[in-house]
């Protein structure tokens, strides 16, 4: 067991100190879950670059900073953007029914803290803390979250999840745990948004998602955290036969962003579409790490990720496709493209294939480069000034990713982000 960095030791101490006062302290199964997480966390701490999965993102270094105590409550009511759909609002990781607008939903939505006694078989069923420091951290310290349970066959429509961070003297940390379960044949669109002030805070959300036979979850995520925030997120999804999990992540904020998505296709014909764009500006470090586990035959998977880097920034993409021996007739495709717009940007990509079945179609591609000089010349030869031509091409690059979002609600919600970002980043 390696010695813990001061950052990791501090979090461990915080967790131990807060344990009796955390929600569900009286539930033995939860106490055990938290204890196992603490054990797993103690074993690995915050990984540094010598840990393969964190090779390009030094979490240990980032977590040395000082953070606020758990169980703190903010009294301020932040200004909320208008809601286009039924919406659950979280402030500093706490569910706020008073700020939410959930009338008219055809399915039950509850806060995690209030529902704990009934969650013994759901919490921790999909996400494990072992080998996953973000899940371990979350398991030790979560206080609240969203619980969604869609009955079989129900078309759930659209629901928004808005997470807002507040300003505080000592950087607040919150670790919401969200549990989503879709019954057989059910459908749902989840639009997740994370925003916050320009001061420092840590948002560590963990999603555990179960998609039953033939069900479909369209999950759109907009990470627009504050300029100094840390966004450390892990999404785990398990998809049964014939089900579909569709995830689009638009990463635009935070000083350090780690967007982990782990999808397991466990039934024949289960499908995963994972797409996203990372808009990385000066001073930002954005890391998208995905694993796609083909654990059943005949499953198709598609991933397309684009990153644009401006100023002094760092982009990381790690995408692993695992095809188990039983997963014959897998059809997997992954494409990762990065556009470097400044001399001080760095992109690291590690698209990985681990294949144990032979009757599969699996491919991945990665390209890295700057704007195409041919395309630039074409626009300029038509009179368009260089700066405008560059903007058009950057937007075109990113818009392609957004346009590919099948779900209309998600696409509309995110349409305005790209043009705005480029104007601000230049």
């Amino acid at each position, binding site marked *: 067991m390696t010695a813990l960095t001061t950052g990791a030791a501090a979090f461990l101490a915080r967790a131990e100190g807060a344990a009796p006062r955390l929600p569900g302290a009286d539930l033995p199964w939860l106490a055990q879950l938290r204890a196992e997480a603490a054990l797993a966390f103690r074993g690995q701490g915050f990984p540094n670059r010598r840990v393969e999965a964190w090779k390009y993102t030094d979490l240990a270094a980032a977590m040395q900073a000082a953070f606020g105590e758990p169980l703190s409550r903010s009294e301020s009511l932040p200004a909320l953007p208008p809601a286009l759909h039924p919406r659950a609002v979280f402030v500093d990781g706490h569910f706020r029914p008073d700020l939410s607008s959930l009338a008219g939903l055809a399915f039950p939505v509850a806060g995690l803290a209030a529902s704990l006694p009934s969650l013994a078989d759901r919490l921790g069923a999909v996400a494990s803390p072992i080998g996953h420091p973000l899940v371990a951290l979350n398991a030790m310290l979560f206080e609240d979250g969203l619980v969604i349970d869609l009955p079989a066959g129900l078309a759930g429509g659209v629901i928004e999840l808005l997470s807002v961070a507040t300003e505080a003297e000592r950087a607040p940390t919150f670790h919401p745990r969200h549990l989503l379960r879709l019954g057989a044949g059910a459908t749902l669109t989840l639009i997740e948004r994370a925003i916050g002030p320009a001061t420092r805070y840590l948002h560590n959300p963990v999603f555990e998602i179960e998609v039953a036979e033939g069900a479909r979850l369209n999950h759109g995520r907009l990470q627009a955290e504050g300029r100094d925030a840390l966004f450390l997120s892990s999404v785990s999804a398990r998809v049964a036969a014939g089900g579909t999990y569709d995830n689009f992540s638009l990463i635009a904020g935070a000083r350090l962003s780690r967007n982990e998505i782990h999808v397991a296709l466990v039934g024949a014909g289960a499908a995963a579409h994972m797409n996203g764009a990372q808009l990385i500006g000066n001073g930002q470090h954005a890391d998208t790490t995905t694993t796609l586990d083909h654990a059943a035959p005949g499953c198709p998977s598609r991933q397309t990720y684009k990153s644009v880097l401006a100023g002094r920034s760092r982009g990381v993409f790690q995408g692993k496709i695992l095809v188990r021996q039983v997963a014959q007739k897998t059809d997997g495709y992954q494409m990762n493209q990065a556009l470097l717009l400044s001399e001080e940007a760095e992109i690291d990509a590690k698209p990985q294939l681990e294949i144990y079945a032979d009757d599969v179609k699996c491919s991945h591609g990665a390209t890295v480069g700057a704007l*195409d*000089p*041919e*395309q630039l*010349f*074409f*626009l*300029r*030869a*038509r*009179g*368009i*000034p*260089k700066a*405008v*031509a560059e903007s*058009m*091409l950057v*937007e*075109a*690059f*990113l*818009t*392609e990713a957004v*346009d590919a979002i099948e779900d209309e609600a998600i696409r509309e919600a995110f349409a305005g982000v790209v043009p705005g970002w480029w104007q601000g980043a230049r």
Partner: protein
Amino acid sequence: MLKIENLHASIDGKPILQGLSLTIAPGEIHAIMGPNGSGKSTLSYVLAGREGYEVTEGSVTFDGQDLLAMEPEERSIAGIFLAFQAPVELPGVGNANFLRTAINAVRRGRGEAEVDAMQFLKLARARMKVLNMADEMLKRNVNVGFSGGEKKRNEMLQMALLAPRMALLDETDSGLDIDALKLVADTVNSLRGPTFSALVITHYQRLLTHIVPDHVHVLAGGRIVRSGGAELALELEATGYASAAA
């Protein structure tokens, strides 16, 4: 209007244009013909300002201004239009958006009034009708998935909307069927007038039946080796380049 004097240009240190001189007065249409590798495309790229070409000697003035000192967009605003041989695709860039941005950039540069969305559509549709272009081509991404003929129409649409005073047609006729060829010719001819000139670079005589040039030049070994009237093109078609260059 366009005066090229003793132009020498190289790519990667390899000399391509080796002392090309040519003067095009307003209202004139010149044709340049020549064998492959003679430097035809290089000439049009150098005139349009593409990177990668080194001008080692000579000068080019356009309306008395030093063209080689101008950025590509400045040349476009000044009135130069290059119709590409193989127009590049712009994935993700909508055709309408691109056209309108270009039109307004050029108008702004020339001190003219810009067009709003409605005005643009009116202008575009009118010209598209003449060019036999379906409305939905405005919605597609620039040149993405366009057939050869559609790409050429798109080029002609741009040319008509940007109102250039000097059009450079770089082997515009390569690979076109007769209908597309006629559209190109019609567009050029519709712009013909005392303030419009064109330099038609072509391998074959075909296009010149429809765009009758005032002067024809033969480009070989990086310079003009022979000049004549429109009938020179027919002679070249009959006898080939080798004898003409001799």
